[in-house]
């Protein structure tokens, strides 16, 4: 059992790397340092397929490894803020049972962006960065919805392997 779990972690982390690489190729030109959040896909797959604790572990592994590979310590801080808030909100959203995977993913997506904006605002001490938030909410919701759909498809497929 443990080996299956380890294998699944490995698979999801690898997928997170690929997604993060793709993300790094598509920058968000007008918004400072904020990404599309494609890597949230692995977190939500872990959340629904394995559990909330596993999703947390995966988030951390993903943030740290991807951070060291594609970024630096400061980008990792933004990633951590977004990733942790995103994980927390997704766990709460899932527990509330108000939403399907799509809704949970939307919440995960916008929380990720909100977390990053908060850290940015605190870093440069300028609250007016918040004007970037409306655009990020919209794009975060849309990508979140797409990720949610994809995630549901993936979890269904993977279920057959076990």
């Amino acid at each position, binding site marked *: 059992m443990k080996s299956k779990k380890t294998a699944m972690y490995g698979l999801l982390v690898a997928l997170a790397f690929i997604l993060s690489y793709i993300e790094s190729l598509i*920058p968000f030109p007008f918004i400072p340092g904020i990404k599309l959040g494609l890597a949230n896909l692995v977190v939500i797959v872990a959340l629904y397929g394995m559990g909330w604790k596993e999703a947390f572990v995966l988030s951390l592994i993903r943030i740290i490894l991807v951070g060291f590979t594609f970024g630096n310590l*400061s980008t990792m801080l933004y990633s951590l803020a977004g990733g942790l808030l995103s994980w927390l909100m997704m766990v709460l959203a899932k527990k509330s049972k108000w939403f*399907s995977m799509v809704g949970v993913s939307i919440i995960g997506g916008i929380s990720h962006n909100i977390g990053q904006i908060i850290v940015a605002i605190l870093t*440069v001490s*300028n609250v007016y960065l918040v004007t970037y938030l409306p655009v990020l909410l919209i794009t975060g919701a849309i990508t979140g919805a797409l990720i949610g759909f994809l995630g549901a498809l993936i979890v269904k497929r993977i279920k057959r392997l076990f």
Partner: protein
Amino acid sequence: MQGHLLFEIKGENMLKKNDLILMIVIVALGVGAILAIHFTKESGSKVRVTLKQEELKTFKLEENTIYTVEGENGAWNTFEIKDGYVDMIDASCPDKLCVAQKSIHYNHETIVCLPNQVVLEIVGGEENAVDSVVN
């Protein structure tokens, strides 16, 4: 229990009504905020340059200028004030997202370079002008 399923979907639907409501509410809030900002924006008169949370210098928008902010460890950001608009034209940061950001002109618009912790903010809009008249 023989084959414990590692993955289970306990009756998760792909889409619920709440998901749609959530999406609509978020998009509505986002669009609403964008429109609110658009219709309440006013011109600024100066640009304030901040480096690592400290105000460095303030320039008048009327005077065309090119200025380079120099930070620690060789970090630098160059911006230009031209015809009342401020734009970041080059920087030492790896992603140069600050350079890609659009030029700013309206009060409280910002261009931010997070890696170098440089912020350009338009200040001195109408509201402040009224205050200074009263004073």
